[in-house]
């Protein structure tokens, strides 16, 4: 087992497109790190660089104590699970799992032992003679995992392994992956664009945007204190409300654009007296009586999810484009046209610099 380290890693494609703009990070031994970001942000490229399927333009990738930049994928002691599983269609499940071991001249009885063990863990015992074409999506996913496990690698690399599964199976496999990784204690890198997967699986998250790691931290750190507007908007569902405004004269609150009210939460001193963006998560807005309210929202649309409802509306006295989403208790009846009076706990209000997008603290 070993950790993983990125030192100033950059990637520029031959056509001049820069995919990764410098990543520095150390992944501890046994840690589960999830790389999350929108499509095209370079997350898969980063993973493929670790696997050795893409070259590293600049910087260094270390697995354990070894620089692996120049090593062939097979010599890096990693195992990868692909989005489309990439199982060999003409081989049985057993052969699929055993192929890598045979190529490494692992003794026959050792192969049989390891495959049997992995098949046991993944409940594939009865399926070893089948071909991938005769398996269901979830079973194929398990075989792909099995192929990774039998290698007993230093690190697992997952490239959106659950995105081809239906919603229910995805939740189930997510748990299985987590449980398995815990049990094996193998360092793992997991790429996904699904923030629920990211939050639930990760020991630590890397939120990437346009080739840059916007924030690295535990899921709760990132949820509680997003470092940039991008991270704040990307993590959390439904997305955080962003309300443009200015710092009040006396610095004791924020004047939202077009609103006469002052949000009675003092922005940090670093905000100065200029423009700011106020971020409040939908789940942190709480319906209260008119007297206690700090915000009023005219309801436009209600999405009832059962346990809770998502209320979409406009700031009552706000200017154009001051859309606000509120998560309220599902039992509460809210109708379109109604005015909701809302309060928010001061420690759940985030302030960002609208120009740089950075968090003000």
């Amino acid at each position, binding site marked *: 087992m070993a950790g993983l380290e990125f030192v100033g890693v950059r990637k520029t494609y031959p056509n001049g497109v820069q995919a990764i703009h410098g990543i520095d990070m150390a992944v501890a031994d046994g840690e589960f790190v999830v790389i999350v970001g929108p499509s095209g942000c370079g997350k898969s490229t980063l993973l493929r660089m670790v*696997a*050795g*399927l893409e070259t590293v333009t600049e910087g260094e990738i270390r697995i354990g104590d070894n620089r692996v930049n120049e090593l*062939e*994928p*097979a010599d890096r002691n*990693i*195992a*990868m699970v*692909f*989005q*489309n599983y*990439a*199982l*060999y*269609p*003409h081989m049985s499940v057993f052969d699929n799992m055993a*192929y*890598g071991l045979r*190529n*490494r001249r692992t003794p026959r009885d050792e192969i049989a032992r390891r495959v049997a063990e992995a098949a046991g863990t993944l409940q594939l015992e009865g399926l070893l003679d089948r*071909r991938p*074409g005769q398996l269901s999506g979830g079973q194929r996913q398990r075989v792909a995992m099995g*192929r990774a496990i039998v290698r007993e690698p230093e690190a697992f690399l997952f490239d959106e392994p659950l995105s081809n599964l239906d919603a229910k199976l995805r939740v189930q496999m997510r748990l299985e992956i987590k449980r398995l990784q815990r049990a094996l204690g193998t360092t793992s890198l997991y790429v996904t664009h699904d923030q629920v997967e990211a939050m639930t699986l990760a020991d630590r998250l890397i939120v990437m945007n346009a080739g840059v790691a916007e924030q690295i931290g535990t899921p709760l750190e990132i949820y509680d204190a997003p470092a940039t507007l991008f991270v704040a908007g990307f993590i959390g569902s439904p997305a955080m409300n962003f309300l443009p405004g200015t710092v009040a004269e006396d610095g004791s609150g924020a004047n939202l654009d077009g609103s006469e009210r002052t949000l009675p939460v003092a922005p940090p001193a670093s905000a100065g007296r200029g423009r700011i963006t106020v971020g409040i998560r939908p789940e942190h807005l709480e319906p209260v009586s008119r007297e206690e309210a700090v915000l009023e929202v005219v309801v436009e649309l209600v999405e009832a999810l059962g346990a809770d409802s998502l209320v979409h509306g406009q700031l009552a006295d706000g200017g154009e484009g001051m859309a606000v989403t509120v998560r309220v208790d599902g039992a509460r009846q809210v109708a379109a046209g109604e005015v909701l009076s809302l309060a928010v706990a001061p420690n759940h209000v985030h302030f960002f610099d609208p120009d740089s997008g950075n968090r003000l603290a």
Partner: protein
Amino acid sequence: MVENRPWLTVLSHAVLCLGVLVTALPIWIAFVASTHPSDSMLSGRTPLLPGGNMLENYATVLGTGVKAAGSIPVGTMLWNSLVMALMIAVGKIAISIIAAYAIVYFRFPLRKTCFWVIFITLMLPVEVRILPTFGVVASLDMLNSYWGLSVPLIASATATFLFRQFFLTVPEELAEAARIDGAGPLKFFRDILLPLSRTNIAALFVILFIYGWNQYLWPLLVTTDEGFYTIVMGIQRMLQAEDAEPAWHEIMATSMLAMLPPVLVVVFMQRLFVKGLIEQEK
């Protein structure tokens, strides 16, 4: 079509039957002719039912050949054709699958150029380049040999192109997974690409075997030794009997024999083919 119109069904069946009749009648007549004594075909009334000389006629052509035309036994010619067709089919598949592998999976300078050069040769069938090819084969001393019969016909742009198209449909992740599993280029080719191409190879084999079997002009040019005559060109030579009527009964028996191997290949390979298609591997 899911429509239920009885007359349409009748009509389409009638057209189908007519088509079958048109295709099958000449073959039937050839078969009938091969079972009659020599004079029946020359009497002016073509018989439509088999005669009684079948075994005799076939034994003659297989054993001694068509005497009147000074032809060698058909058995030898069948053997020559078989060797040539097999060498062409196997050679074409081997060369083109390797060429396609290089073009699809390796990044080397002038890769695109190589592909287009191969592709352009599609425009140059054997007949166009037959003189220079003959010159080369002659100077390599390959006239009157199996190599001379088959080697110049082995390079195939069509097969290369077909394999290329197939390889492009194989998911890239498969190659990457194999790389992570420690399979080098040759291992990947042998363990993964080749088994996946099985059905394609079978289909191409059928087409190429028939292509090789039906070669006429090329064998006519490069063989002067009777021992290397192929059956397709041999049939034509039988017609050139001097000062004698063509021995139609024997010629038709030879034709029937010449038709047999391609039919067998199609019938036999089609099973493999359908089996491969049902398994749906990919």
